[in-house]
């Protein structure tokens, strides 16, 4: 399946189906944040740290650098996330993962908790699913909010 990758960085994106099957739960945006946890409980920062590194699942490090292993395989399409927890609170981080297009419709950062608009020709394995589940996003929020420097 190696040949199917987008390049060394993205090999395998297509072969791991998203784990998410549930329909997105409703959430409320207040200003530039989603203050409440999507699951009603806090995420696990340790699980979030692992998920950040899963480059074919969360994809985060394809675009972002940060305080994680293998800096030479971290992308430069988005801002460096080192210290993001000092710049943004958990609610602000949550909205930036759930639906960054709400803040900037032209951003290239995918909306991780929004179904794509019709006509996007989504591959069958991913159709009708959000990129990550509510619980996975909460784990990421907990991890990123802990990055204070």
């Amino acid at each position, binding site marked *: 399946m190696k040949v199917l990758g987008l390049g060394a960085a993205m090999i395998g994106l297509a072969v791991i189906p998203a784990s998410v099957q549930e329909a997105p739960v409703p959430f409320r945006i207040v200003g530039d944040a989603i203050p409440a946890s999507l699951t009603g409980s806090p995420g696990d920062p340790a699980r979030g740290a692992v998920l950040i590194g899963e480059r074919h699942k969360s994809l985060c490090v394809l675009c972002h650098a940060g305080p994680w292993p293998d800096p030479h395989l971290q992308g430069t399409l988005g801002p460096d996330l080192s210290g993001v927890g000092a710049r943004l609170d958990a609610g602000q981080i949550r909205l930036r993962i759930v639906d960054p297009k709400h803040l900037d419709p032209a951003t290239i950062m*995918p909306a991780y908790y929004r179904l794509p608009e019709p006509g996007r020709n989504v591959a069958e394995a991913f159709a009708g699913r959000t990129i990550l589940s509510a619980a996975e996003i909460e784990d990421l929020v907990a991890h990123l909010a802990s990055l204070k420097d």
Partner: protein
Amino acid sequence: MRGRPWALLLLAAVLAAAAAAADIPEADRRSGYELMSPELRAMQDDELSNPGMFSVLDGERLWQEPGGAAGTACAGCHGDAEESMRGVAARYPAFDAALGRPIDLAGRISQCRTERQEAEPLPRESEALLALSAFVAHQSRGLPIDPPDDPRLQPFRARGAELYQTPIGQLDLACASCHDDNWGRRLGGSTIPQAHPTGYPLYRLEWQALGSLQRRLRNCMIGVRATPFDFGAPELIELELHLMARAAGMAMETPAIRP
């Protein structure tokens, strides 16, 4: 009346500028070659170390080899490829009047094979078709890409341009999101090139093989979690028409090397 024409001209200029805003200015155009390490560039430049040259040599052999029910070789009709195929790949895709649509170089080679040689069709991405394509395209190495201004191609090229700008896949990204707006940045460990089709078929280290432009485009589509167009699909040829127009004047590199 006076002044009006100026206003219109100004409006036209502003609209043209807006339409071109996202495009890469000509002075900033870079082949993927220029974004590679000096080692890989040297590998591409040196015919003895460029692994793509094996396929070119294979293609040369196939060019000479009589085949099919007609028992003719490519060379039987076209003679010396160095003369007859010079510059051909730089002008493809071309309009095929019988089909009523554009055809790419690999499609034309296949067509010659089935219709003129009366031989078995060569599947897309087969070694033989890649080798023949590489051999023919190699005859344009160093020549500028020169898309024909055949008006019949225009609607297809326009559709290619539209596909290029349309966000697709679960990741909701357009070709332009990466290749116009973010070239030179890194996606993971890979530098994002400008998507110029200068080197195809080319030898990709990651594939450890020669591959076509269509294979590359399908990979990018799969990467953003879209359903890739089938090999040979009209959409891939439309995209190629657009990419060739964007790269007009840039030098052909076949067989290129890419990481």
